């Protein structure tokens, strides 16, 4: 097996049946993807300008995340994300201002009041569980959320995301096992970008598709083209409906590509051939979806221009807002160690 090829999968997984998405939905999907991309790009600009010490990116993952998000109901489902899930958390209601406050570690950052690195999402108000850095720990939490939701007879699905690298951790396997035994309403969403920092998939696992791991736990496992939001939406909807019917968990693997270094602390040229990156550009999910929608007449150039200027205005506003926000006061250091 060589480096995984997102282009090689998904033709059979691509949505063939009507998805129930209206043209307006498709445009909204596109707008979320474009917003996430533009916000992400702004974060890198601020990093290079020395204003933001750390950035971790969603670039390349937008279609997977938004396809998945549209299958969920943010008012009642619980999102247990990982650090790349910028597009998903935007869909759940986190704002560009929130993201910029977190990026610049300012007071008012709703995820952690400047305590955590950027990309460590969390907001009770938005049904997004607080998240840490140790990979895959969150997969068990989603399982526990699903256990509680089932116990409380709620119509809640827990949705958790993890990189393919994280699926090597024991916590990932323990979560799948537990969830399957108890037929819990949880969906395990693996955003497979082929790398765990520098380690290519072939050094992480001896299988081609992470979805194959599902079989060992007796749950459905599907691989989808994570650059096609509609295909991801179809797979996600099926898994979410299954969970709501009480039939248990599913594993979805979305094949994506990471268009940036792992983070602003990484230099991917030390391990990734720039030609590989360039070759993947044709699969840029945002550009591709835009082209598809234009081609299908779902989106017009004028609409696209309006969307883009709306996004730019939002991001400019968010940046200025966060730049003017104060830092936390040192006295806040000792708050919230215990609840009583």
């Amino acid at each position: 097996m060589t480096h995984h090829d997102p282009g090689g999968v998904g033709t059979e997984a691509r949505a063939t049946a009507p998805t129930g998405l209206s043209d307006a939905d498709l445009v909204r999907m596109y707008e979320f993807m474009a917003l996430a991309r533009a916000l992400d790009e702004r974060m890198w600009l601020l990093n290079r300008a020395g204003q933001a010490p750390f950035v971790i990116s969603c670039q390349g993952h937008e279609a997977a995340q938004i396809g998945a998000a549209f299958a969920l109901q943010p008012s009642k489902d619980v999102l247990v994300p990982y650090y790349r899930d910028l597009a998903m958390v935007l869909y759940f209601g986190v704002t560009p201002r929130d993201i910029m406050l977190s990026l610049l570690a300012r007071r008012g950052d709703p995820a952690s009041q400047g305590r955590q690195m950027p990309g460590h999402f969390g907001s009770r108000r938005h049904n997004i569980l607080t998240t840490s850095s140790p990979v895959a720990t969150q997969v068990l939490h989603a399982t526990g959320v699903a256990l509680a939701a089932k116990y409380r007879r709620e119509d809640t699905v827990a949705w958790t995301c993890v990189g393919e690298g994280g699926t090597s951790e024991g916590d990932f396997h323990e979560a799948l096992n537990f969830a399957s035994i108890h037929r819990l309403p949880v969906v395990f969403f693996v955003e497979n970008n082929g790398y765990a920092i520098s380690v290519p998939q072939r050094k992480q696992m001896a299988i081609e598709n992470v979805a194959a791991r599902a079989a060992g736990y007796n749950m459905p496992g599907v691989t989808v083209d994570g650059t096609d939001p509609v295909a991801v939406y179809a797979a996600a909807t099926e898994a979410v409906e299954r969970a709501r019917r009480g039939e248990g968990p599913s594993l979805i693997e979305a094949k994506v590509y990471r268009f940036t270094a792992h983070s602003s602390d990484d230099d991917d040229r030390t391990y990734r051939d720039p030609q590989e990156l360039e070759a993947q550009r044709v699969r840029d999910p945002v550009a591709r979806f835009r082209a598809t929608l234009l081609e299908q007449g779902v989106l017009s150039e004028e609409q696209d221009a309006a969307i883009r200027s709306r996004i730019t205005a939002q991001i400019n506003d968010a940046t200025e807002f966060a730049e003017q926000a104060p830092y936390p006061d040192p006295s806040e250091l000792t708050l919230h160690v215990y609840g009583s």
Partner: protein
Amino acid sequence: MATKLLIDAIRDTLFAEMRADDRIIVLGEDVGARGGVFRVTAGMIDEFGEERVIDTPLAESSIVGVAIGAAVHGLLPIAEIQFLDFIHPAMDQIMNEAAKIRYRSAGDFGCPLVIRAPYGGGVHGALYHSQSIEAIFTREPGLKVVAPVNPADAAGLLRSAIYDPDPVLFLEHKKAYRLIRDEVPENGHTVPIGKAKVVKEGSDVTIISYGMMLHESLAAAEALEAKGGSSVEVIDLRTLRPLDTETILASVSKTGKVVIVYEANKVGGVGAEVAALIAEEAFPYLDGPVMRVAAPEVPAIPFSPPLERAFLPNAETIGAALERLAAF
């Protein structure tokens, strides 16, 4: 003698020993083509190949557990945990296995394993890339724990650790990697595990520290002396388990006053053990309370710069403790 950065002293020692002894293998996340996220193993895979430099799956329990298996079967594995903050999935393997293999087999098996891990704050690493959780390990008989910050000490202790018959946790302060430079002897020099070093002699008060706090302590000592205050002796513990009781007690018996400085949480830290040791063994010599300057009781270092600064001890907070102690 060449002067080297801490990171180069560690890297050069790894290269030298891997060339000299083919029982040594290196395994961890991103240690191959990337050369580790801090670049300590840069170039290693080119020279020694994929058989000796293993990019592992992202699973710390497997890194340590497999290294234990290799150690009991004739190799000298050096496992890298990418950040000390991420060592927890391997805790069972470290505490219940590596540390207990010799004792439980009544000496039939040994576990000559080195676990390298970057630790420490002050690098905008936030809660999960800044932790100093060494005290979890220093309470564990069967493990040795070293935390050199001087490049020559790091080279010498790494060599000792590799050939030590028992598991050694080798802690590398990530802020010191490219900040601390000093002369490093060539030709396979070693520093014994379990020996502290008096890095500055003095007569009125002793500071006991390690890691980046050693440098904050030295700055505090110099500032105090420049003001014409007390003469300060500064000790670098270098090894956190076993403690060098002799060097600690000799200094405290001489000065009668001691401040222990560390960037981990104060409660239950290495300083707690050092303080207890001094209270038990040097009580008659003390002219003031045994003091600790350490981090507050919050779970980890926040990201935001003002909070990160408020968390970490520094030359000023150490200086304030020295002045309080001078009043006794």
